[in-house]
Each structure stands twice: as structure tokens, then as C-alpha cells.
């Protein structure tokens, strides 16, 4: 790709999670993080943008094939805000895992504000030939 063909980036406003239904008991706003999902023969990889979250502030929970990623982000306690284009808040998103994944082997790492989740696929069951005695 040459310099000219490279896309200029744009900002899209963060999408806040609407708490219709149950009331949130936690304080602060939660946003829907942007995600890239790529599947190969061996695994499914997710890149989730969670800027501002430290490693100890990200939670990954799997319950009945649903993976929930929650990131808490503390807004900076600031002096005088002069100009503001974005709000700071946590992130939350749920993903349904297929049956063919190995939940035990899911790995996660945080890199420059991006949570990278690798979900390996379960080894296919080998067909077993049963000999008739």
C-alpha cells in the first residue's frame, strides 16, 4: 500500500450502552467497544478496543457459552477542562461462543489498550471404527 492509498482515520462517537430494562447498579457510563473478529482453521481471534483500562481492570467471564468482557476505566480527576471531545468510561460487550471452541484454552493479552482474545477451536472428534466381534 502506498502512502496515498492509506485511509485517513475518522472518529466515531462512542456508543454508550443503553440500560433499558434492568437498572445499572454501577456508577459511570459503559461503552460498547469496537471489535475485530477473525477466524482461522485453528482459532478465533478478537481484538477489543479498551483504551484506558489497566490489566487488573479487565474482566473476562464465560458463562454458558457467553463470553462477557468488562473493562473499568477511571476518568481522570482533572483540573480545569478546557475542551472536551470524548467522555471517559468503562466498556462491556458479550460474545456468544460456538460449541466448537475449547473454552479452557482461551487466552488473553492486553496490548496498547487493545484486549486480544484467542479462542482455540476444539479438536474435531476422531471417527472411531468399531469392529464387530
Amino acid at each position, binding site marked *: 500500500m502506498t502512502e496515498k492509498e492509506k485511509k485517513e482515520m*475518522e472518529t466515531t462517537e462512542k456508543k454508550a450502552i443503553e440500560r433499558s430494562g434492568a437498572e445499572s447498579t454501577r456508577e459511570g457510563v459503559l461503552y460498547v467497544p469496537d471489535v475485530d473478529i477473525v477466524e482461522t482453521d485453528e482459532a478465533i481471534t478478537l481484538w477489543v478496543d479498551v*483504551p484506558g483500562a489497566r490489566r487488573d481492570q479487565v474482566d473476562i467471564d464465560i458463562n454458558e457459552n457467553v463470553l462477557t468482557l468488562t473493562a473499568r476505566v477511571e476518568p*481522570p480527576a482533572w483540573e*480545569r477542562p478546557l475542551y472536551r471531545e470524548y467522555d471517559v468510561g468503562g466498556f462491556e460487550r458479550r460474545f456468544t461462543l460456538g460449541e466448537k471452541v475449547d473454552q479452557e484454552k482461551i487466552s488473553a493479552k492486553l496490548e496498547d489498550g487493545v484486549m*486480544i482474545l484467542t479462542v482455540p477451536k476444539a479438536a474435531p472428534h476422531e471417527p472411531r471404527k468399531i469392529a464387530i466381534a
Partner: protein
Amino acid sequence: MAVIRWLGNDDVFSRLDRMQRDMDRLATGMFPAFGSDLSGSPRVGLYPPLNIFDDSESFKVHAEVPGVKPSDIDISVTGNTLTIRGERTMPSVPEGASWHRRERQMGRFRRSLTLPEQIDASKVSARCENGVLEILLPRAESAKQRKIEIKV
């Protein structure tokens, strides 16, 4: 590239001016200002979005740049103008892989910002932690507030 400029200080007129611009911004939807959009569709603006703070000694600029390596960010200061350039590159994906979701934007970005007061370019520092860029721009000595004693 867009240049943001402030004229004047934190007096009542510049505050009114800022309010006016905030209203304009909400109306035109040029910047992702806080508050929700009536149409419900996300607004689009320049990347990266910036938050700017002032603690009388210095200005502090924050930007959320997840997935951008600190080595891919280029920050320069000319006079009172701060320029942030960089590029967010796609993660390497093995051949034959299929994409299910592609929401994260990739590409180059460049943004300039003119601060309302003189800054000391030699003392500007920056750090990038967990995808959040923080640039500290100390005011120049001449721009700092000074108390003048009245001689009797």
C-alpha cells in the same frame, strides 16, 4: 488537517464564545461532543478525539489511541501549535482467515491544535499508557500568571 484555535483567556466572553461553539458543534455534528445526538446516529469527527485540560502551570492533552504503538506516534510542537501524527495498522492475520467483524478503523491520522498561550516547546513531554496518549505542555514563563505587588 484541522487547526483548533482559542482566542483570549478564560473570561466571560471567551466562555460565551466557547458555549456558542459547543452549540454549533452539537448542531452540525462535526465533533463528537459529549451529550447524545438526537438522530441517534453516531457523529463523525477528526481522529483522535482530544480532551484538553488546564492547570495554570501547563496544558494537558489526552487522546484515546488504542492499538497504536507509541513508536508509531509522532508529536511535534511549532510555536503554540501541537501536531499529532500517526498510523494505526491492522493486526497481522494469517492468509485464508475470514473476518467476522471489522469495526476498528485503521489508517493514518494527523491533527493540529493551537493553544491559547505561549508554551515552552523544550519542556513538552508525552507518554502513552494503555492506549491513552497524554501530552503535557508547560506554559512559557512569560505566559504564567504573575502577581504584581503594589509599591506604597
